[in-house]
């Protein structure tokens, strides 16, 4: 069940309609937990047990951490939570990867090792809800927030369906206080939420899903294509992943808003960033801040001198890459970003800050976008070999294949994407989405909203593609 398909519309209509008829806060929370279970169970009900297990462990661990001042006992309960959460992640997401990598390493060293690959199904959203639940016990351990007393509240925090499978990674101290009082429909900015949902739908179903066949066709066999197609695919994927993920996030935030809850923002026009540090303040903000707060700072942050800072930065980005998936391609993606962040820090320290000089801002923007787009190549490619081939094609260092995807369709698509980018810049600068349309009367808005849906439906791809970030 994905946000852009009819099944979700029907599911949400039922959830929404019944939710606001419930009188008490507890019954609403219980109802949303059940809805979350149904939503998640629609993929694979067997993995509901994982969520319940994690919820139970972290709820108890946080209560025990809070109940004592003995640092050893507190530490033990935290370790239990860490081992339990990360253990599940290790088994379900990384076991085969590390076993295969070990085998390959041993072979290259001349040892004959073989392992039986287990066919482990990756539970959808496991990286998201694991990080979310884990951050709660760490925050309680750090005394940043008290442990939650109601298992109902904690259950809803973990299973809240708008953000359950692909974030944003909500912090407990931000979300749990919202559960204290019953939400009131009259306080919801419906116009804002409905518009945001439509914008998210458009990004996902009309842009990302229409781009997807081109990107997929290229990355199925990159060596078969020419250089121009490699450039087309690399640039389209840059647009696709943004529209796919931020579209999902928009719909998640809007869905939560329609139920009266607030989720943290996740994107802030990342492709308008003037440097790579700026990019990471704008891209997948809930993950980058999670990595900063719970990994970078835990590693020592910038407290140990330059070399340690750079080491911590690189480790954080590489592990952040690995968080996305069990593949050396994601490690390379993280490494490329870590390297760029280190270089940017070095430049800035030496007074070279292109983004600070108006005349050089376009150069800085292009360099940043170019590096980000290049880093998406290992992120999308299905193997290390395909990454090498694609990067070689892009740089003109490889012999071209005979196939090409360039044609009228691709050109139209590019023109549309270009126009949308301009629109994106304009709306971002003028705050069109946020304020201008509020001036019209509710009746006119409702009519325009229906009209906009008719156009969006006509523009949407007829193929449903799962959200890219669901696989993480």
């Amino acid at each position, binding site marked *: 069940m994905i946000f852009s398909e*009819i099944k979700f519309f029907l599911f949400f209509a039922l959830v929404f309609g019944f939710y606001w008829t419930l009188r008490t806060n507890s019954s609403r929370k219980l109802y949303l937990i059940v809805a979350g279970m149904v939503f998640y169970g629609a993929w694979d009900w067997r993995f509901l047990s994982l969520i319940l297990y994690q919820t139970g462990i972290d709820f108890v661990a946080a209560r025990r951490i809070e109940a004592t001042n003995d640092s050893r006992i507190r530490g033990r309960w935290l370790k239990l939570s860490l081992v339990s959460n990360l253990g599940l992640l290790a088994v379900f997401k990384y076991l085969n990867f590390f076993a295969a990598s070990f085998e390959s390493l041993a072979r290259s060293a001349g040892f004959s090792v073989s392992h039986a690959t287990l066919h482990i199904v990756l539970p959808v959203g496991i990286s998201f809800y694991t990080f979310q639940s884990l951050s709660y016990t760490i925050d309680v351990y750090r005394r940043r927030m008290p442990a939650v007393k109601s298992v109902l509240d904690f259950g809803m925090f973990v299973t809240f369906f708008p953000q359950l499978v692909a974030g944003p990674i909500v912090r407990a101290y931000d979300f749990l206080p919202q559960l204290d009082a019953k939400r009131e*429909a*009259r*306080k*919801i*900015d419906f116009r*804002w*939420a409905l518009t*945001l949902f439509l*914008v998210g739908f458009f990004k996902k179903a*009309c842009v990302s899903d*229409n781009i997807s*066949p*081109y990107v*997929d*066709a290229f990355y*199925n066999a990159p060596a078969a294509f020419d250089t121009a197609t490699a450039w087309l695919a690399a640039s389209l994927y840059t647009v696709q992943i943004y529209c796919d993920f*931020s579209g999902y996030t928009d719909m998640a*935030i809007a869905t939560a*808003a329609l139920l009266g809850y*607030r989720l943290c*923002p*996740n*994107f*802030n*026009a990342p492709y308008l960033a003037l440097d790579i540090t700026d990019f990471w303040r704008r891209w997948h903000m809930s993950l980058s801040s999670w990595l900063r707060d719970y990994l970078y700072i835990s590693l020592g942050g910038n407290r140990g001198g330059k070399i340690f800072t750079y080491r911590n930065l690189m480790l954080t980005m590489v592990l952040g890459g690995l968080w996305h998936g069990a593949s050396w391609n994601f490690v390379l993606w993280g490494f490329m970003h870590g390297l760029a962040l280190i270089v940017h820090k070095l430049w800035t320290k030496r007074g070279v800050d292109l983004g600070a000089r108006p005349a050089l801002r376009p150069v800085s923007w292009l360099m940043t976008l170019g590096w980000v787009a290049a880093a998406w190549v290992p992120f999308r490619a299905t193997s290390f070999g395909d990454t090498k081939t694609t990067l070689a094609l892009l740089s003109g260092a490889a012999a071209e294949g005979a*196939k090409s*995807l360039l*044609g*009228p*369709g691709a050109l*139209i*698509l590019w023109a*549309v994407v270009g126009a949308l980018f301009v629109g994106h810049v304009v709306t*971002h600068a003028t*705050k069109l*989405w*946020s*304020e201008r349309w509020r001036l019209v009367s*509710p*009746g006119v808005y*409702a*009519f*325009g*909203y*229906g*009209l*906009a*849906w*008719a*156009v969006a*439906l*006509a*523009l*949407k*791809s*007829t*193929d449903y593609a799962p959200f890219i970030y669901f696989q993480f």
Partner: protein
Amino acid sequence: MAEYRHQREVDARPAGAGRVLGLCASALAGLFAGFAALNVLVTKDLWHPPLPRFEEITSELEAVKDQVEVLFLGPSHMMTDIDPRVFDARMAALGRPLFSYNYSVESLMVSERDYLLERLREIRPKGLRYVLVKPDVWIHTTLVNTFSTRTRYFNRPATVRRYLELRLGSTKPFFTYNLPTSLVIAWGGLMHLSNVGVISDLILPPKSALTEPAGERHPERRGYLPLDDEKPKDSGDDSPYPVQPPSGPVRQLSAGELAELARLFREIRELGAEPVVLIPPVGNDNLADTAETLAAMATTFPEVAVLSFHPSGQSPELYEKLGYWADRNHLSPAGATRFSTLLADRFATLLNSRGGAP
């Protein structure tokens, strides 16, 4: 700061039911105004079929239209199971040389078959004598896959209701259906009106064209598409024979379905050809005709010959060798070769019994 002003609470007056209903009505009016505008601006003639195969086999057929005498028309298990070259060679060996063409498309819906017949009327193959057709009026669930432009492209407004009623196995007027059935029809009509994906399909090439670039087709195969050339079919079950029995009760052909068959046979005759019902071998009984269906058809249309390779028919050989099957519903290339030969034998016998020449 986010890309948009982030969420904030408002302090609105509670809206009454009348106001909420009014706003919903206004939004619906906007939605339908949008649908209507798109229906005016984007006419069906501008659309292209999302499956390139429709165009490929039609253009290939056009190139050999003066030679074609026998045409195979049906869904995927006709497309993958009949090799016209093998069929023709066998017919020649049996003393009845002819030229055949496989004009079948995967998951062919009734509406799409109508489209192919329409194209056939335009091409007018002068020598066409027989159309071996798998009618499939009674099985196609895809007919109400209303989110597919592939469905709606072929569903002209005048016929969409007929297709939906056919799918639902009745000819009752809309309001005399039970509620769920009425909702399905209404939903189909709404989706037909809404033009989901029409602009996307209009400006972008078919998705499959990106992964199957032109120039790799094999016109000499005359429409036959062996399964080793494609990814395995997603039939939901890869194990071949034994045949699975029908999962539901056996349905009698409804009056609407019989009328649909009559229309199909009439349209084939209008092309100057004789219809022959062909039931290719399938491992899933739900996709084949049942004995009851064939009996009903034989009673109503005694003049239409039926060549059935259903397991209850006369071709056990095809079902006894696993190597003949690619999956439960499609033959392997070896199976297709054998079936094309057996089909030629049965077809030659039919011609001999009638004493005519193709």
